[in-house]
């Protein structure tokens, strides 16, 4: 990095060359030279008459990072802001450290535009990060952005990366930035850059420690039917004969009774008196199992983070050593401990050659904790008791009723009860992840301005999950009992499953290898500058899985038993034949990519810049036709620093730069195949093996394509009072995977197949404004992040996608493609209130209707458009979102407050359902507001309770659940975190003065305002919101 050397008190100055050397003539012998630069601390050197002043060591600026220009790392090259025509946001170290979470991605929440964390669900394992950048670019493809660690795509578990090792994160948003990732970059790219030592830097040691404590989760947040209401419903069902079959055929089904049902039955059989029955029922009505959960299962989560990082370098060597250790206890007493070691060594063995060797090592152990809830044979019964009257662990019936489990086998079987309070001690899952990410890089300067970079990365992550269910665990006892063969004459038991512990193992090995060879060209002459790279890459990712179970397992002395997986054995209670579960299972996948790419930019007069990139990928998951074709993904961009022009005279705004870009990137689903996929069977007629192709080959299968146009404006007012970036973008996804009707002349097996036919479009604005409200001793800086994003499906070819019926009753949590509508959207039945019978009413043929089948058929047939019976409500993801960060500092104190907002969308609340109540146990507390007598329809919207034989019972429930009254506006404002820090001592490397900073952070402070009146957190409509966390920590540098 070039610095400026000037003679203090004169106009005499020069710039240093790349290697830092400089010449100055006519310097006074007593002069003082001042060395300044954007990334170095200003240094002064007294000339003292010397002709050669030797080596001056300057220190990197790290503390006053607002002044530091943070370069964007694309994973392929590092770019200065004026070299960027695309959209790249950089989150620097200081911002990353405002939050204290152990997951690096979570620290990006609320500090950058366009990035949104969601609560959506998706089956695709490539979508598990649950975050999107600038909305979506795909319908059925993976949603995860590409995560790059330093130079290569990171395939391991994101939790492995320790935030303390991270220097900065670059978020590549538009196609000009991501098209260098070719077929993978469509969902944007997050480049994580680790801390690295630099040449000529004295040893710097950073020590960091944080302690975080979280509140207990609020179990009473989700709406839940009260115990007395639940029992009332059970009583109603009992009287109507709902349980008759279960009771009468208990000797055959052995389905467990709930405690209340048991009391009703006992009373009916005359086994208990009426007073007893009433007393027992009343006792149950006072029970709430959530109190027991709170008492026995939940705790305050505690997280401890320790880290030390050593960095430094000489003339020819730069080194980094980071060691981090985290200890976490979760809300359910689950444990997660992690050790990270980061080593990087870069040296210059000979002139023009730089070698770098590094490794990132992770070792983590997770141990399961206590259950989050207990069900009675799969039913959520609100009054379950976890302890008996003496306070001992109580049994909660699981698969079979106790009348069966207590008597079968005449006392010879193992205890068949499930004790939730005890069971977790005997059934524990321990997951160990070990990862090594090793790098080798060689950089050779061929001639001035032309470098050859060769890099290789080897990544291996092994994940070993071991579940030990000892003989005391319900899992093991249940399995042993099921497979027990009882000789009733002798009382002997023949154990098919040994009556001993069971160990279940799931092992997964991920291996990725990357090789890259790249030429970097960098030349400046007169007013021109050219920056170019070109290279090729090979990547291979393999995944191997193995699972099996060890029976008769005993740890010390170690032994196990042999088991017969091959044959089927009769099982209790029904005698059905079954295999012993857990036979060895293997899986293996290989993904291979071959790519060539190039990227060049030309800058004229430091004001005009033109850039372009091109990349071609081949992959073994693409069809042959795709791999054979030369159809590259490309981008182009231009930038213009208007403020550099002579005609530009706006003093208020001394910096103004315009940029525009256009380009394409791709998205790949590694689980798809271009090959025909067959299954093998045996033909019972001929007894010959036969092959049936069940997925059609598609030699044209290719990546999904995402086009993005981006316009950007960067500005800074005088004295940097206001600065910011405004960006407007248009997205278009084409060739997206989608179901479509096709010409089945080829293959008459199905009329629809998935191919590259679907399309979507999106547009949005990202605005970031930074305002220095006060910049004296007291500083107040406000950052406003404002993002707008809208998307819609443009091409999809199934009937449901064309008429929109699939949106009806959608929870908005999954992508439901409907042409012309947002990817996540909600539609609902028109609500016409309850009738005088307490039945919900919709609209059919212009009249109020309770014909739920007909209303459903009407939507299937006529769709959403011009259909008075349905309303399209709107998008289910925020259209406008962002945050407001206020940072105050005074002397050594600083504090920041982050308030986030999400606006312009809807969510569906957890809806009351009789079906759930009757068949699955719990439902919402709305039960108490239900219609009970004529006239109630004027006060409530909750339908009357009807027995399941009621006509259209389940359709009535489904209609209610999908009606507009259950859809609420999602808009809300949330206080995300407050961060306070106190700089006891500022670190100044030059003088080897240690620095010390202490800080505190409170996160998840809750909602400040919400549009819905029902006090529902729209981010957590169905689950418990993340509890508040409190953290304190210290950071020392010396």
């Amino acid at each position, binding site marked *: 990095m070039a610095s400026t050397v000037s003679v203090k008190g004169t106009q005499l100055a020069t710039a240093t060359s790349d290697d830092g050397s400089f010449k100055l003539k006519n310097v006074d012998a007593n002069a003082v030279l001042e060395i300044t630069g954007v990334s170095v601390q200003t240094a002064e050197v007294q000339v003292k008459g010397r002709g050669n002043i030797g080596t001056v060591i300057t220190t990197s600026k790290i503390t006053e990072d607002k002044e530091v220009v943070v370069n964007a790392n694309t994973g392929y090259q590092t770019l200065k802001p004026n070299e960027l025509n695309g959209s790249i946001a950089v989150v620097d170290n200081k911002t990353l450290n405002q939050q204290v979470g152990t997951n690096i991605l979570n620290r990006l929440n609320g500090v950058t535009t366009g990035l949104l964390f969601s609560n959506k669900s998706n089956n695709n394992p490539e979508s598990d990060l649950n975050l999107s950048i600038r909305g979506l670019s795909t319908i059925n493809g993976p949603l995860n952005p590409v995560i790059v660690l330093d130079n290569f795509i990171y395939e391991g578990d994101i939790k492995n990366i320790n935030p303390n090792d991270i220097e900065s994160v670059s978020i590549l948003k538009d196609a000009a930035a991501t098209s260098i990732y070719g077929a993978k970059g469509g969902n944007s790219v997050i480049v994580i850059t680790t801390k690295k030592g630099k040449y000529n830097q004295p040893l710097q040691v950073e020590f960091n420690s944080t302690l975080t404590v979280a509140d207990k989760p609020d179990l009473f947040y989700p709406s839940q039917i009260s115990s007395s209401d639940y029992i009332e419903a059970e009583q109603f069902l009992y009287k109507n004969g709902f349980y008759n079959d279960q009771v009468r055929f208990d000797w055959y089904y052995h389905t467990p009774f709930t405690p209340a049902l048991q009391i009703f039955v006992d009373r009916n059989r005359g086994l208990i008196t009426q007073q007893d029955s009433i007393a027992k029922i009343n006792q149950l009505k006072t029970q709430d199992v959530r109190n027991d959960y709170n008492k026995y299962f939940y705790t305050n989560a505690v997280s401890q983070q320790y880290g030390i990082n050593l960095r430094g370098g000489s003339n020819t060597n730069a080194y980094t050593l980071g060691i981090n250790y985290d200890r976490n206890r979760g809300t359910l007493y689950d444990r997660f401990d992690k050790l990270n070691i980061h080593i990087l060594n870069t040296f210059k063995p000979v*002139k*023009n050659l730089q070698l770098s060797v590094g490794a990132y090592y992770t070792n983590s152990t997770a141990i399961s904790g206590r259950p989050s809830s207990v069900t009675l044979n799969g039913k959520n019964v609100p009054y379950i008791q976890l302890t008996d009257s003496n306070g001992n662990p109580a049994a909660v019936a699981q698969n079979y009723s106790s009348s069966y489990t207590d008597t079968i086998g005449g006392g010879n079987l193992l205890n068949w009860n499930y004790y939730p309070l005890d069971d977790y001690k005997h059934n524990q899952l321990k997951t160990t992840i070990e990862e090594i990410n090793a790098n080798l890089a060689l950089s*050779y*300067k*061929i*001639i*001035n301005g032309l470098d*050859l970079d060769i890099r290789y990365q080897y990544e291996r992550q092994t994940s070993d999950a071991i579940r030990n269910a000892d003989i005391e665990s319900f899992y093991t006892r249940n399995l042993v009992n099921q497979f027990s063969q009882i000789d009733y004459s002798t009382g002997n038991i023949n154990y098919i499953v040994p009556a001993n512990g069971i160990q279940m193992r799931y092992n997964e090995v991920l291996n990725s290898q990357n090789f890259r*060879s790249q030429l970097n060209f960098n030349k400046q002459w007169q007013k021109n500058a050219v920056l170019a790279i070109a290279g*090729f890459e*090979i990547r291979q990712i393999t995944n191997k899985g193995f699972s099996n179970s060890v029976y008769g397992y005993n740890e010390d002395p170690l032994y196990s038993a042999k088991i017969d997986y091959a044959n089927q054995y009769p099982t209790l209670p029904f005698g059905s034949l079954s295999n012993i579960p857990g036979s060895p299972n293997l*899986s*293996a*996948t*290989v*993904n*291979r990519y*071959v790519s*060539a790419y190039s990227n060049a930019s030309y800058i004229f007069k430091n004001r005009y810049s033109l850039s372009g990139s091109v990349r071609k990928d*081949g*992959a*073994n*998951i*693409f069809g042959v*036709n795709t*791999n054979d074709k030369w159809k590259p993904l490309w981008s182009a961009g231009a930038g213009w620093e208007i403020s550099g022009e002579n005609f530009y005279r706006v003093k208020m705004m001394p910096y103004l730069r315009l940029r525009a870009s256009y380009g394409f990137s791709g998205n790949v689903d*590694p*689980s798809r*195949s271009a*090959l*025909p*996929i*067959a*299954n*093998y*069977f045996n*033909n019972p*007629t*001929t007894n010959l*093996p*036969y*092959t*049936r*192709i069940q997925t*059609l*080959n*598609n*030699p*044209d299968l290719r990546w999904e394509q995402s086009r993005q146009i981006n316009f950007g404006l960067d500005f800074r007012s005088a004295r940097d009072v206001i600065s910011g970036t405004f960006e407007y973008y248009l997205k278009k996804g084409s060739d997206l995977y989608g179901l479509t*009707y*096709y*010409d*089945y*002349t*080829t*293959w*008459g*097996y199905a*009329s629809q*197949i998935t191919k590259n036919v679907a399309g979507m479009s999106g547009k949005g604005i990202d605005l970031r404004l930074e305002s220095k409200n006060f910049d004296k001793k007291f500083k107040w800086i406000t950052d406003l992040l404002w993002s707008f994003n809208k998307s819609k499906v443009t091409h999809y070819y199934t009937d449901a996608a064309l008429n929109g019926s699939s949106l009806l009753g959608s929870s908005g949590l999954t992508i439901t493609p409907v042409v012309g509508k947002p990817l996540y959207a909600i539609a609902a039945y028109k609500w016409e209130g309850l009738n005088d019978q307490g039945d919900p009413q919709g609209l059919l043929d212009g009249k109020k209707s309770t014909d739920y089948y007909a209303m459903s058929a009407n939507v299937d047939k006529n769709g959403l458009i011009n259909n008075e019976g349905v309303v399209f409500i709107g998008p289910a993801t925020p259209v406008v979102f962002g945050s407001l960060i206020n940072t105050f500092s005074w002397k050594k104190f600083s504090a920041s407050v982050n308030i986030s907002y999400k606006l312009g969308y809807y969510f569906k609340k957890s809806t009351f359902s009789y079906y759930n109540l009757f068949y699955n146990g719990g439902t919402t507390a709305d039960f108490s507001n239900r219609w009970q007598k004529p006239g109630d329809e004027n006060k409530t919207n909750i339908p009357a309770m009807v027995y399941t034989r009621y006509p259209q019972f389940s359709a009535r429930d489904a209609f209610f659940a999908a009606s507009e009254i259950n859809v609420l506006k999602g808009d809300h404002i949330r206080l995300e975190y407050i961060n306070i820090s106190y700089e006891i001592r500022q670190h100044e490397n030059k003088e080897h003065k240690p620095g010390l900073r202490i800080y505190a952070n409170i996160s998840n402070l809750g909602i400040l305002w919400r549009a819905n009146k029902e006090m529902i957190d729209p981010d957590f409509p169905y689950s418990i919101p993340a509890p508040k966390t409190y953290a304190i920590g210290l950071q020392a540098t010396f």
Partner: protein
Amino acid sequence: MQTSNKFLPLYIWLAVIVPIFFLSCKKYLEKKPDSSLTVPKTLDELQGLFNDAQLMNFQVTPSFGETSADDYFLPQSTYDYLPTEPQQQYIWALKSYKFANDWSAGYLPVYNSNYTLETLKEISRTPANQNQWDKVKGYALFTRAYSFLNLSWDYAKSYNKATAETDLGIVIRTTSDFNTPSKRASVNETYQHIISDAEEAAQLLPELSANVLLPSKAACYGLLARTFLSMNEFDSALKYSSLCLDLKSDLLDYNGVSLDSDIPFSNFDNPEVIYYTEMNTYNTDHYPFNAYVDSTLYAGYDENDLRKTGFFRFDNGYYRFKGAYTADYINLFSGIATDEMFLVRSECYARLGMLEKAMADLNTLMKERWNNNVPYPEINETDKATAINKILSERRKELLLRGIRWSDIKRLNILGANITPTRIINGQTYTLPPNDSRYALPIPIDIITSTGMVQN
């Protein structure tokens, strides 16, 4: 600069290595992404495609033609109970219908053939595997030709030498890649393709196959005989029916069959069956649970003709068919059998003026159908036209509801037979005059939409 010269060759070396590297990419990228995915690649796996009787033999061949033909009728009460599509089919008025139909069922085996033929190109034929290799290729070619012929009976005009070059045939699909668009071939191209596939298959297949669910040389000859007969090319039809009967000429003596049974005939072990297929059940007007056999047709059986009891059961005033070689109530046989071959050869002899031979073949078959307690009255027609009519009449009586009648009406009307199927429903009479454009049945509307092909 001095040191860099030493390394400059590295750069050149890279420039050489990069292109080589990309050439070898193709191989690198051929690796199967998921080891648990099974992509049929070996001869055994390809053979397995043809062992899949569920898709290749059972309920596959077209039934729209049979439902449009005249061997049956629907009483008003049954008609009223039917959904709209079958009602329209009954009076030849159906214009638009969608997936799961003759087209999809008929082209599904073609996919297996095409995929097999493409994959075979990657398996070298060696002395060790040539036996199996030839068989698999033969299966593929036969299956494709067989499916094409059945489809063209439905969807193409009957072969008429004068206009065959321009008449629209069916789609001759020869690739498993659905990205290749479907186009309709001419009737002539359609038939030429069927003939060349079947002739090549005949060179590759064993004379008879291990089971009748798999094609054989006899099946190929049978298919060629059918093909040429439906083209009214009697020389070739004669040649191939003879070749077929040379390989297999067993007939089932109906005297040994328990004709009173509800299911009189067996399927795979029926000695007459050369290649076994069933009609699909997408078109059901003609199925015995709906349809009664045409009364005139039923009246045409002699009292001593065992088919009169073996093929029909009395139900509520009329007769329902029960004579399928499928060993069940529902499915109808559409495969190739020796009885059909005797009738083809007999007709060809007669058409070519060899009346004695024609009568000999007819009598050979009819003897097996005659009650052996009664002396068999030898048929001995000496007038060519009468002989042909006699043979055609026996043909219809023998091969009813076997997926053949529709094609017979079409080809015989080309020769001027003037057969006019007639329906009476709701007191109204509907007819289908000879050579009406509706003899080429409508192609599914979703196929028309997705391909832009010309509708019939």
